[in-house]
């Protein structure tokens, strides 16, 4: 009887794991002693970080998407039928179409989603770039923008912790290029008492804001947006007027997680080193879906996925544990349209971003193309 591996979710983490397992378990998959199934929500795979470039005309929509079946190794049984209920006790996942998939090992990779609807008025009054429709609308709004007040409004939790700073610097460069920067005021809001949760990043960003004339409101935890009055108000009692509101909406996990009672907010309690669901020895959790207190970012998902591939393959081939995840995260930081920097850290090494350079920006642009090799598990 084949050992069944079931991956729920076809984003970056699930895809890397599926492809990596196909390489490490080549013989077992060929002989039929292991079977690998992925349940996805769509037949296309999106390069999510590319959404940041869409509003500025720096990437085409078509560049963001590939056919998921072509990204996946052909030995993966890929089913477009998202999970509706995960039953850990019965080792079974029921899909929206009503099919039930049993498993020996489960990988939960359902990810996160933006919830502008969780803040009154935000869905109606704000723009964002965290999904395709939002990026399209923001692109149109920027094309029509002739000057005025722009508020970049950051809410938590959110994926890609450096994206709010990136979009702020890119906005500034875009508006300068458009010739309307002198008629524009950019204000950046952040929930805590500095410009970024990473202190070294905040220390670097502060003089950059001063240099570019970008204003900031710290301790700004968004209470509501008034789309008619065009104002955004914080829990702390500050109200800002805007002509264009660029929000980083708060995120939650997916509905299937809360519906299956697997974790509040859609985040699954996960052991930080093994990436096993707390209380399970055959359920791995990866990427945004975990409740581990580290960045929800593509690189986190990638490094976690590599660990899970090694452990799942080792458990199936040798019945032993391979290695633990060390909390590694690596993030490029675009500091405008022409320069970039990066940060990396793990559970024991604090981040220390270097000075921005054109070379790092080029690396980031190159990675925008190399991503597809990452998803295939080749990079």
């Amino acid at each position, binding site marked *: 009887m084949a050992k069944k591996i079931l991956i729920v979710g076809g984003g970056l983490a699930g895809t890397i794991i599926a492809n990596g397992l196909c390489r490490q378990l080549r013989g077992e998959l060929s002989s039929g002693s292991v079977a690998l199934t992925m349940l996805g929500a769509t037949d296309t795979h999106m390069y999510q970080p590319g959404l940041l470039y869409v509003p500025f005309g720096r990437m085409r929509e078509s560049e963001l998407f590939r056919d998921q079946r072509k990204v996946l190794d052909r030995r993966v049984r890929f089913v477009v039928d998202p999970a509706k209920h995960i039953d850990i006790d019965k080792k079974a996942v029921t899909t929206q179409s009503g099919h039930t998939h049993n498993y020996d090992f489960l990988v939960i990779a359902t990810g996160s989603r933006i919830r502008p609807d969780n803040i009154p008025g935000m869905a109606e009054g704000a723009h964002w770039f965290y999904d395709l429709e939002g990026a399209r609308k923001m692109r149109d709004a920027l094309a029509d923008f002739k000057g005025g007040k722009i508020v970049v409004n950051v809410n*938590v939790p959110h994926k890609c912790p450096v994206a709010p700073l990136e979009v702020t610097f890119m906005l500034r460069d875009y508006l300068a290029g458009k010739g309307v920067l002198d008629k524009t005021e950019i204000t950046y809001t952040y929930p*805590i*008492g500095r410009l970024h949760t990473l202190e070294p990043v905040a220390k670097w960003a502060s003089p950059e804001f001063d240099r570019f004339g970008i204003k900031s409101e710290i301790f700004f935890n968004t209470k509501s947006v008034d789309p008619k009055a065009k104002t955004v108000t914080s829990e702390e009692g500050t109200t800002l007027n805007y002509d264009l509101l660029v929000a980083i909406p708060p995120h939650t996990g997916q509905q299937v997680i809360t519906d299956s009672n697997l974790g509040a*907010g859609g985040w699954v309690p996960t052991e930080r080193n093994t990436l096993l669901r707390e209380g399970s020895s055959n359920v791995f959790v990866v990427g945004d879906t975990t409740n581990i*207190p*580290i*960045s929800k970012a593509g690189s986190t998902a990638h490094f976690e996925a590599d660990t899970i591939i090694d452990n799942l393959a080792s458990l199936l081939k040798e019945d032993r544990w391979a290695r633990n995840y060390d909390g590694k995260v690596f993030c490029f930081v675009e500091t405008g349209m022409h320069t970039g920097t990066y940060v990396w850290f793990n559970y024991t090494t604090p981040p220390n971003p270097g000075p921005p350079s054109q070379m790092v920006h080029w690396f980031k642009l190159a990675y925008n193309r190399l991503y597809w090799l990452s998803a295939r598990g080749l990079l």
Partner: protein
Amino acid sequence: MAVKQRIDARGAFCPGPLMELIAALKLVEVGDEVEVWSSDKGSVSDIPQWVNKVHHEMVGVTPQEGYWSIVVRKAK
């Protein structure tokens, strides 16, 4: 009855203990307590400062072996 949720944010650089606390407070009821474990000494001042600004309630800060236990009650 207050429910205490614990966040083990030791060694968490990003998003960090305070951002984890803010996210956790959104998921609990008014009157519930959330305990954060942080190995970052900055949390001892950052978290009470934020709690004061947003008008939640500090319950306590207790030094432990190599980390701090910081308990906050959701007030609104």
